[in-house]
């Protein structure tokens, strides 16, 4: 591996969180963003072709070194680490609404889910998966919620675009206002709403 790839490996190792390429550039004053991207490719290929137990993953807008899934069971059995607890169905549904409709207020979430959601919103905030991103101009100026980078990390996504697009789902998302969008273009609605 070239010296920049080594430096990036050491840095990603030390950071232990997803680090954006733009942030990695600051490691070496002589390196350009393209240099960094090329070195990251080299590191990824090295891990893949040289049979490593870890791999380079694009996550939450950055890069992170993670262990390979095949070893998870053995690591857990040896009690060296534990997997993240699963989210409850209520948390997942609430996250789904927020991910596609953000910024979105509690009333809209409850309208879609058909149940009161304040307890779930609290837990999601405590777990750092959602945050208040603003306030609506509407009556009572309710708080608006959005997803955090940790949400992307938890799902292993590099950004929100990696969520399934509406047309990939078996049911097309129904825009709440029929006149707001053209026929059936749920994706356009979601994009416009963000």
């Amino acid at each position: 591996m070239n010296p920049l790839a080594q430096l990036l490996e050491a840095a990603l190792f030390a950071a232990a969180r997803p680090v954006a390429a733009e942030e990695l550039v600051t490691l070496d004053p002589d390196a350009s963003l393209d240099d960094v991207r090329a070195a990251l490719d080299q590191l990824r290929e090295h891990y893949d072709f040289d049979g490593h137990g870890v791999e380079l993953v694009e996550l939450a807008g950055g890069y992170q070194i993670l262990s390979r899934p095949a070893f998870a069971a053995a690591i857990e059995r040896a009690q060296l680490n534990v997997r993240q607890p699963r989210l409850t169905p209520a948390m997942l549904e609430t996250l789904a609404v927020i991910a596609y409709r953000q910024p979105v207020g509690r009333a809209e979430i409850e309208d879609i889910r058909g149940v009161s959601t304040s307890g779930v919103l609290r837990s999601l905030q405590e777990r750092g998966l959602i945050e208040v991103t603003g306030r609506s101009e509407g009556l009572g100026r309710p708080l608006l919620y959005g997803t955090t980078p940790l949400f992307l990390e938890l799902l292993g996504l590099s950004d929100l675009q990696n969520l399934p697009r509406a047309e990939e789902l078996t049911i097309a998302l129904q825009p709440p206002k029929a006149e707001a969008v053209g026929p059936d273009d749920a994706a356009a609605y979601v994009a416009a709403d963000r």
Partner: protein
Amino acid sequence: MTAGAPVTARPQTGLNASPPLVDRRVAVGGFVVELEAFSGPLDLLLHLLREEQIDIADIPIARIADQFLAAIHELGLNQAADYLEMASRLVRLKVQMLLPRSLDGEEWEDPRAELVRRLLEYQQIKEIAHWMAAAAERRSLRFGRGYLPPPPEIPPLPLTLDLFELLSAVDRTVAGILHPVLHRVIARPLNVEGATLRVQSLLEDREEFVWFEALGARPTISDLLSLLLALLELSRRGLCFVLQPAAFEPLLVRRESPRPAA
């Protein structure tokens, strides 16, 4: 448009599969703590439609309304507001469906349209939720670096804090409040002057009396407080004396200062 697709056309993954009607926890007192199988009335409704293999675009409202009511009764959910609201919505729809359709030739507007829209929307959210659960499951098989050696001594960084973080905290704090902390003080009429007059007239007749003789037959809290304030005020001015002959005995109110017997 997928609106016409029967609900049963959905892929039935393990996560998606219809839960059995039993096995869910509902705490006493009507508070739904955690419903293992259903995350809300829309979920329960979708379950019923799936069970009956009903086309979501043409729901036999009367039948489904009855089944929904029976189900929430069976599940002990007939106290949960969200489920009750759906139940009443279904009953209302049932009535609307019985109304004569078109009298003047205008196009008939299906009263079920809004419910269908919500069901489809919710069904899609559920599908996304399942996709996300699977993604999180895959992600949880990869570990980040587990051990971080203690960092070298570095000067403390400036804290980060932003307004929305604070607002989130306000939001969480408020959500955590079980009982409202605001108390509204309700003005109750205290009649201290009346109580004072009563005490004074009693003392004109008698040397001493037991304190509750100054109360009416069925005293209210206000009467009691009025008397208390009157007694305190009168004794402060030296116009009466309050004493307790022995522990746990009722208080006596006297005209004269108690003196040791000569």
